[in-house]
């Protein structure tokens, strides 16, 4: 069998006595666009953080193209581009400077860094923001810059936590095009999201995570089993009837 692009093996994380992620396992085949779905607090960010080497798991590990993230972090991290959710950036640099800095830090040649930076900023429409430090960026701009950082060293796997959150529709379309081209070029993508329609449209495989466990995984059509992905999701994580009753004062 071909080595999968990304493999999460028995990942477990305890916060106090709470099992935030509980023996979570996933396999992302090469060339697939993999969606990770789950309600708020299901453990998506925690498991992705553990899988790329940002958070040490209490048990389990992850492999990127067969390279163990926790045994050989240096070689594993060279193969992946990551967009984490809600983390800081070097706030006092401009977007162009962030990309230049991180590119050089990765050991890319200077002129290569320069041309890639210019191109990425142009494509993501951040090229007119050279007079702005990252601290002045909006949430959507931060996301786009984060995506540029993830793409900069041309990895073969992208791990994106909520890449479309707070991004305007025009930029979202651009990002979709970029990601589809990336897949067509043989890359693999894992992204987490709440937005069913987006996952249905973009991804070929999905996993549904609830309470730190994978409750369903497979191709999109396998998981939705004839219905819509949203219905499948709701039935998997448990439907809520709340919201239908009470709150009478709201319409009074």
């Amino acid at each position, binding site marked *: 069998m071909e080595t999968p692009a990304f493999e999460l093996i028995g990942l477990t994380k305890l916060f106090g006595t709470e099992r935030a992620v509980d023996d979570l396992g996933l396999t992302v085949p090469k060339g697939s666009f993999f969606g990770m779905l789950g309600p708020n607090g299901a453990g998506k960010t925690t498991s992705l953080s553990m899988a790329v080497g940002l*958070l040490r798991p209490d048990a389990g590990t992850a492999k990127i193209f067969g390279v163990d993230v926790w045994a050989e972090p*240096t070689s594993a991290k060279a193969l992946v581009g990551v967009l984490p959710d809600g983390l800081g950036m070097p706030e006092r640099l401009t977007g162009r400077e962030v990309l230049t800095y991180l590119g050089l830090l990765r050991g890319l040649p200077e002129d290569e860094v320069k041309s890639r930076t210019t191109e990425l900023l142009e494509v993501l429409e951040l090229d007119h923001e050279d007079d702005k430090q990252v601290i002045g960026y909006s949430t959507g701009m931060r996301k786009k810059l984060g995506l540029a950082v993830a793409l900069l060293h041309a990895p073969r796997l992208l791990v994106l936590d909520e890449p479309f959150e707070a991004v305007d529709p025009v930029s979202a379309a651009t990002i979709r095009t970029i990601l589809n081209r990336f897949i067509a070029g043989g890359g693999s993508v894992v992204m987490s999201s709440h937005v069913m329609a987006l996952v249905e449209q973009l991804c070929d495989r999905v996993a549904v995570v609830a309470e730190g466990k994978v409750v369903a995984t497979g191709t999109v059509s396998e998981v939705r089993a004839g219905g819509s992905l949203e219905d499948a999701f709701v039935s998997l994580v448990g439907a809520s009837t709340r919201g239908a009753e009470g709150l009478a004062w709201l319409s009074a």
Partner: protein
Amino acid sequence: MALGVTYATSHTLVRMRMAAFRHALKDQNRLTWIVGGGFVGLVLAAGLIWLAGIGDTDALVVALGVWMLGWVIGPMFAGGGDETLKPEYFSMHPLTPRTLSAGLLTAALAGVAPVISLLALLSLVVVGTQLSIAATLIALPAVVLQLLCFVLASRLAVAVYGVLLQVRSGAVIAALVNAFILAFTAQGWALIVAFVSTDVQGTVAKAARIAPSGWGLVSVEAAGRGDWLEALGALVGLAVVAGLMFAAWSALLVRRTTATRTGSKPRRLLSATSPGGAAGAKELRSWTRDLLYGHRAVFAISYGLFFCLMPLAIGWKSMLPWAGPAAVVMAGAMSANLYGSDGTALWATLMTPGSARPDVRARQRAFLLVFAPSTLLITLLLTWWSGDTGAWPLVLSVLPAILGGAAGLVVACSVYAAVPTTDAHKRSGNPLNSGENEGETMGITYLMLVLVSLTAGPALGAALAWSWWGVPIGVLSGLLAWWYFGLVAARRLDLRGPELLTLLRHGRSAIGEVKRANLDSLPRWRRTLAGFCLGFAAIPLFPQALVPAIFKLTGNNDTKSWFLALYLSAQWQWVVIVVMAAIGVSMYTYGGVTYFRAKPARAD
């Protein structure tokens, strides 16, 4: 109507504040700080009442002036004052600025510090009872108005600093003022000695009566004399000052909750060509673009200058050569949380293979670039000015040693003892407030003051023994400390980077279970004692041991001030100095070790 809303808002905000206070009491670490601070405050308040009791109103009015100054500058050293209720929380509520600030003011009054100040102000009532019934009655509104003035002055000062720190020149002014005040607490004795010996006590008391902090007392005294015009005038004056401060504070609150924070337009774009160069360029931009970094640099350098210039007031020049080293020590202590202040941006370094070493070395280089040329220049100029030729080999040995030591220790401390702060892009409008860990930040600052000073030890010893041979030893020890501590920090970052990121991302609570087990195993008195030791160790160590030792070494015998040792007969003086130094060092060690022991367990 408006009054009703104001009352209801105030009521709610006070309840919120009390709820937060109850939670704080459950946190052992914060409880220690509250109890310790409360105890010191009660002792000081008792002191004021005692002054009133013995009828020394001149001393009392000066003490009240200092008390108000404490309200104004205290927040600068405690992370921007109390920020339990941030005005940003309420920006979407349909409240007028006046209503909101009245509510916030009422909530600000519901705390430990205002209660202690209220007790201290009872000294006015004590003065009144000694004069007449009318004076006692006047004292009651005077106490209330005076307290209001204290709290408002404190809030207004925080707001003004908030505005100042958003522009470069403001940050510089704030740093200068802070440095002067902190240097004054350590070296103010020289200025006080100068004042006392030239008989200006009366002038100081007169000035303290003119300042609003003295108006309450002025009013009570005037009532005692039967001078009703002055008594009422002083009260009205207090009310007007309070009103003006309130109006200014409300206006600044509006600005704070509506202004945006974008960095200034960058002037020079990054043009490095190698990993190390890029990391260095990034770090240097933090120092030049982030006003908090700039504030820190100006603060450290001007602290060193003030610290060594103040003794000039009594004509004592021997401290001048040490301004450079003093600035480096302060710079090291202020920069001991580099990773903490960059927050979760660490992820980018973590995800870049092999970037730990260039990153650590770049931070060291940037530190040296900011502080080495400036302190070298200061050292050369001031040593020359002091005319003390014997000081040359000493300072030139100590300076390289301490620069290297500080550049090494700042990164080691930043990696091993990082204190989580709020991420820059999520901070509130109060630039002084960077999270809820002021206590820890303060403890580490004290510890670093001692550790950085210790790195000068070998060079100083060598210079005292072999004069100029100390210089190569100083350079060597500086290089060694820079290299070794940097290596240690980079290795730790490689091995434990994810743990550091988790700490910065989720704070202590995420890894809280381990920590609680560890800190809880210590009895409460030990934690309180450790906090007390860190807070007060400076008194035996600096004014009671080091300063008299330097006095004796330099043959200065005219000033005794409050240096215990110098009041004793000659054969006991060195004994007392050594004992005091030992007490100071042991207090620092005990406090530091207690905190340090509780630490590694939660990181591993």
